[in-house]
């Protein structure tokens, strides 16, 4: 089943191209600072808006800082923090979703009510809570993003579990006396693993959006550390004269989200989640 899914994924041109582009962005964010593009703070006011060259591939900003370096360092924060929040949200959301879907009844309805309540609170609030209690501007907002994403993940995982909840193999496992934790981890988790993977991709895409939104609202990482959303806010007053300073981070955010979404779509089609006939 896995090899067939991989083959189908590799035949999906959009997904493969996105995978390559996203890998390149990631590689550049991790590798470029090592290759000498690592100075993102020192000012060189005489050299502002320098012509595009190998030392300044994206020119320099109004204070003479290299834009390329800032974008690459910023990507580490945006993509890294979004990844952390997705990891936390997927772990918690999956556990709770399995609990809700498998146990059903009271547990299920209480968990659904709680998740409804969470999604009624704008996550900007959770951001201020985490940021003020753990330290402002240090990037703790990823906990808030993770928290805000749990309801959506919970719903998806729950409906995936409900689909296989009453299948024969689970009945059989229970009939031969397997314990509930064993059934949950060996049968349920194993059978919804592809759904989790696809959900992780779409969660990651929306985490990147949330992360950059918080940066744009200046709730995120504090000055002078670059972060893609924060860069947009910082350079916004220059949008009429030097629009590229704003457009470049915007393009990087959108490109990352687009590629992650396409990878997720490719995985979904490859595993044929909609049909649900992969087990």
């Amino acid at each position: 089943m896995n090899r067939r899914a991989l083959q189908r994924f590799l035949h999906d041109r959009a997904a493969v191209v996105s995978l390559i582009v996203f890998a390149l962005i990631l590689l550049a964010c991790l590798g470029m600072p090592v290759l000498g593009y690592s100075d993102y703070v020192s000012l060189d006011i005489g050299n502002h808006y320098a012509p595009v060259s190998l030392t300044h591939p994206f020119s320099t900003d109004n204070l003479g800082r290299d834009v390329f370096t800032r974008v690459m360092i910023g990507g580490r924060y945006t993509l890294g923090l979004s990844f952390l929040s997705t990891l936390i949200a997927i772990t918690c959301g999956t556990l709770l979703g399995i609990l809700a879907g498998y146990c059903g009844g009271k547990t299920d309805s209480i968990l659904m009510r709680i998740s409804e309540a969470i999604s009624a609170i704008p996550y900007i609030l959770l951001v201020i809570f985490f940021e003020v209690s753990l330290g402002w501007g240090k990037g703790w907002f990823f906990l808030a993003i993770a928290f805000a994403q749990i309801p959506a993940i919970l719903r998806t995982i729950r409906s995936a579990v409900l689909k296989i909840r009453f299948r024969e193999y689970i009945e059989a496992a229970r009939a031969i006396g397997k314990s509930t934790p064993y059934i949950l981890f060996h049968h349920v988790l194993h059978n919804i693993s592809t759904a989790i993977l696809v959900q992780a991709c779409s969660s990651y895409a929306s985490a990147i959006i949330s992360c950059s939104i918080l940066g744009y609202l200046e709730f995120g990482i504090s000055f002078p550390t670059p972060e893609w959303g924060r860069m947009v806010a910082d350079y916004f007053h220059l949008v009429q004269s030097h629009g590229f300073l704003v457009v470049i981070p915007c393009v990087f955010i959108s490109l990352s989200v687009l590629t992650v979404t396409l990878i997720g779509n490719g995985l979904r089609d490859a595993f044929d989640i909609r049909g649900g006939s992969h087990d």
Partner: protein
Amino acid sequence: MFRFLLKRILTAIPVFLGALLAVFLLLTYIPGSRLGYLPIAGNGDLLDHLFTLFHVPANVFTRYLRYIYDVITKLHFASGFHHRDLSLEVLTRARLTLFLTFLAFLLIVLVGIPLGTYAAGKHGKWQDHLISVISLVLSSIPPFCLAIFLAIVFCVTLRLLPVFGMNGPKNFILPTITIGASGLARTIQTVRANVIEALHRPYIRTLRSHGVKERKILFGHALKNSMIPTVSIIREMTAEVFVSTFIAEWFYAIPGIGYYLIQAVNARDYGVVLACTAVTAVLILVFGIISDFLYYLLEPELRHREVSHE
């Protein structure tokens, strides 16, 4: 039908109270919060009498009850900072936010559903590819980036639309697009996928063999049968649309609830934050109830068995 609505509204109330309690506790226990100083005793109404009668100690829960009581009975939103009632401010702003959100949902429904169906009808042709690519791109641009792109194109380069101001219907075009774009894109994708799936069903072949017009098959039958997933995807995006509304208000300087909230967060004015959250939570829950009701109308099965929340 009324039983369903009543039941749905009654289940929304504890959810609202729980959400507000969570926010209240969060904001009270933030280091340096002034929310702890919200007035607890005062105007000598029923709640105060009860508190003094039963010797209820003043703690965070009594303050919470007091707050809820004021909001429900007098529409009074206490503010920790200003010592004045925020209700006029909050409700005027909420009206504007609601109007913007309504416009965005109008865009999502009135443009998204026909476009998605049209793309499904042209499945595999260039119109379909064009619509798919555009919706894919729209769904992956964060609202503030889209706002900047739109401002650069329509305001700076083409000089067609104003960026800021509240002088007429022209001012609402760009915010509506900014708020609705990603929801619109997702609606188009969902409708398209579901209509394409419906078009492969046997009953469509039967209709075709009877000589029913293609347009009628598409919009009358295939679309009608894929409305349920559409309503559920629109229901799921409600919270996201509200966040986009906040961003659009911030960008276009529209004095709505989101602008107020972000300003209050920056000023650490937690009374205002609490009031804005309460109003937003009510709006989100009301949208949830409306879409559940639509769901109920569309899904005949639901009318017969217990309402499940999937």
